[in-house]
């Protein structure tokens, strides 16, 4: 207990701060759950535990803002470990669904994600057209939900279990108009004097908040024309929006930049996986950034292999994305996009989410040697490590 009260000083590392220039031979002070001083010549508080990490690289803990960690494991053979996918019983308008109700902080995949340096995620719903509300998660043991209702998620695009592309756009327009009517007529709605509205009362409240820009709306969309159509709805409804996927985003880069809508993209995506993504390419992120779009990286719903996020950042760099910007795209940028501005950067006052690496964190030959979430050091030993020790 005493130890928690004392400050910790990490010394001798190169600090990549997540939103600025690297600091060689720097020191970071961890003071409770916050970062204290940061820099080259930092006064170490008396009694602080000094951890010499010379030769290491320190980055902010990594962030994937479109993750299925804690809500999807083990697939069809263990349906109780997978939330909200193909189940049509929900219907396709699920604005009332909250991932915060079902997120499992003890998911097997979480320690393995932490081994990959991940300290925070936006845990997202999946399935339907209006999919539900995401939650910002602190991945420390006993951490859990930092913010429960971060954004409402909408999935557009080609035919799937939620129907055709046309149907999805049509339903979205219908429910937004329903919500608009509801917002202006809450009294008559309760008195049953309004026309029938498709979403439930709870869902209408959530959508009304989206119309009030009190909650963000994340659009999952890939095909360039769909991106433009989504931008039109965002403009018409004056939504506070984010785009995710956006594999053909480079073809609509200027429109996205002009709309000032940030994007979350998967740097691995370069296959014409379906007819919505025929123009996927590895320099999509670089082209979007060049056009002035705010870009964060995601593995787009990954769970068991969430630790690949750092390699994704490296792939983006190998395909023209600026190096420090790539770190920002998995730390400060996704945190900022979702209003968690005290995360994702090494700066006095920020939440002490820190990863210590034995080399370039984007390289597969490097690994995290220490990890701190909210100032607490995480035991990086995973169940996989225990299995390895048992059988090697």
């Amino acid at each position, binding site marked *: 207990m005493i130890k928690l009260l004392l400050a910790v000083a990490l010394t001798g590392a190169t600090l990549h701060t997540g939103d600025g220039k690297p600091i060689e031979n720097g020191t970071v002070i961890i003071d409770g759950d916050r970062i204290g001083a940061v820099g080259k010549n930092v006064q170490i508080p008396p009694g602080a535990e000094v951890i010499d990490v010379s030769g290491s690289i320190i980055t902010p803990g990594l962030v994937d803002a479109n993750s299925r960690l804690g809500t999807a494991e083990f*697939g069809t053979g263990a349906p109780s470990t997978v939330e909200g996918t193909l189940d049509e019983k929900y219907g396709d308008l699920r604005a009332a669904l909250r991932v915060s109700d079902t997120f499992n902080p003890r998911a097997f995949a979480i320690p393995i994600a932490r081994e990959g340096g991940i300290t925070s995620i936006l845990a997202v719903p999946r399935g339907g057209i209006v999919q539900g509300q995401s939650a910002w998660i602190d991945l420390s043991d006993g951490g859990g939900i930092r913010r429960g209702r971060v954004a409402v998620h909408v999935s557009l695009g080609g035919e799937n279990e939620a129907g055709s592309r046309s149907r999805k756009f049509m339903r979205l327009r219908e429910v937004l108009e329903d919500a608009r009517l509801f917002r202006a007529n809450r009294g008559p709605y309760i008195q049953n004097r309004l026309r029938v509205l498709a979403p439930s009362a709870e869902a209408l409240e959530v959508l009304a908040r989206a119309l009030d820009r009190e909650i963000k709306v994340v659009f999952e969309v890939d095909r360039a024309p769909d991106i433009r159509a989504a931008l039109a709805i965002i403009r018409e409804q004056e939504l506070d929006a984010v785009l995710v996927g956006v594999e053909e985003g480079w073809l609509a880069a200027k429109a996205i930049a002009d709309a000032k809508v940030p994007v979350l993209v998967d740097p691995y995506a370069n296959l014409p996986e379906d007819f919505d993504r025929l123009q996927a390419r590895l320099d999509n992120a670089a082209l979007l950034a060049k056009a002035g779009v705010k870009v964060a990286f995601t593995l787009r*719903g*990954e769970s068991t292999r969430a630790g690949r996020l750092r390699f994704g950042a490296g792939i983006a760099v190998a395909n023209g994305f600026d190096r420090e910007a790539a770190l920002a795209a998995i730390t400060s940028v996704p945190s900022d996009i979702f209003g968690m501005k005290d995360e994702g950067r090494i700066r006095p006052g920020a939440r002490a989410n820190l990863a210590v690496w034995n080399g370039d964190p984007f390289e597969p030959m490097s690994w995290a040697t220490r990890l701190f979430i909210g100032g607490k050091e995480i035991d990086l030993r995973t169940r996989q490590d225990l299995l390895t020790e048992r*059988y*090697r």
Partner: protein
Amino acid sequence: MRVRGVQIFAVAGACFALACALPSPAARPGRESAPGGAGSPAPVKATAEPDGPALLFRGASVMTAAGPTLERADVLVVGSKIRAVGAELQAPAGTTVIDAAGRWITPGLIDPHSHLGVYPVPSLPAHSDGNEATGPFKPEVRALESFWPQDPGIQRAVAGGVTTILALPGSANLVGGQGATLHLGRAIAASEMQVAGAPKTMKMACGENPKRVYGDRNQPPDTRMAEVAMLRQELEKARAYEVDAKKGTEYGIAAMQSVVRGDTLIQNHCYRADEMLLRLEMFGEFGVTPRAFHHAVEAYKIAPQLAAAKVGAVVWADWWGSKIEMLDGVPANAAILDAAGVRVSLHSDSPLDIQRLNQQAAASLAAGLRAGIKVDRERAIRWITANPAWILGIDARTGTLEASKDADLVVWSGDPFSIYTHADLVYSGGRKIYDRADPSVFPPTDFELGTRLEP
């Protein structure tokens, strides 16, 4: 992972065993005239002549996959073959010299478990040709006869340094059909891509997939025990098989007989250690040993047994947990197996991961080092070259950079174990099949021709 076109989770595009076990709703019987298992189709790969034009790669870091990395070394190629590897090689008159100073050269990468061509992109019901899931035994079908040479994934795999794959049927069936050992490159028909002299292979599967696919239809197998019992019976039938002059050859049973006789390599999809040991025992009743267990996420639990049985293990760097039988996957799997003397290979099972086998080798090596296992780069490069060549039975001709081997090689822009490195040049049988600076060497497939846009 895609299941009937709906992404559940996992990296987009991954087509691992679960997805590939699902039959397409639009699946149709193969061509009726396809005589699976009979005869040996003529290989028609257009390689350079044995004493054709000479190429000298000068001054590279050369990872031969057969020994230590050679610094500032040369690789001399004459025609389709490697003539020499070493320092300061003399070039015959007329040799084309390629300056490779500061760059790295490795053998062409080999993926022993790919569904390119049989589950191509775009992944559509119209393209879903990897599982003939109309019965649990389909030894007569051949991946070669589903393979679509216009799969846009092929060009991207080559851009990742891959020269050779084993294209396999999926894992819906206990016996899924025959694999196709292929040189990647441009072709009109898959038969043009076949590796000459490659042994036949048979895809088999155990565990969750077959019992789910058939159990869900209330057909056998519905349990793991039925999977073993049914396969045992099928092997017994094949052992006793004689061609009935009146009926003519039954190609499926004939193909299985080739398996029982040890002439066809068994490539067995299997995750759990207990199931792998059961399979070894059951195949042992027939005097055969599988060539390799594929996916094999629990192989590290039985490394000494696999080494003693001389069975290969085809594993991943970081795949685990996408289904229950994958729960115990560990990233040090490859390193543990290598240290125990098992022929271990990495594989992709995915059109995305096939583009990054070199990075997968690096991640697997790092996981081994992190666990304190004695492995090194020279071992790790073998996990994507020499060892998969052995698993495919083509190690006499490819998989290392040694004199008289096929000139299948990659010139990398830097250290192949770095995320920032690109394959600059890829050669197959002495022929350049990819040049990062010259897209015309591997132009868009017919599918992408005229539709692919550029910035």
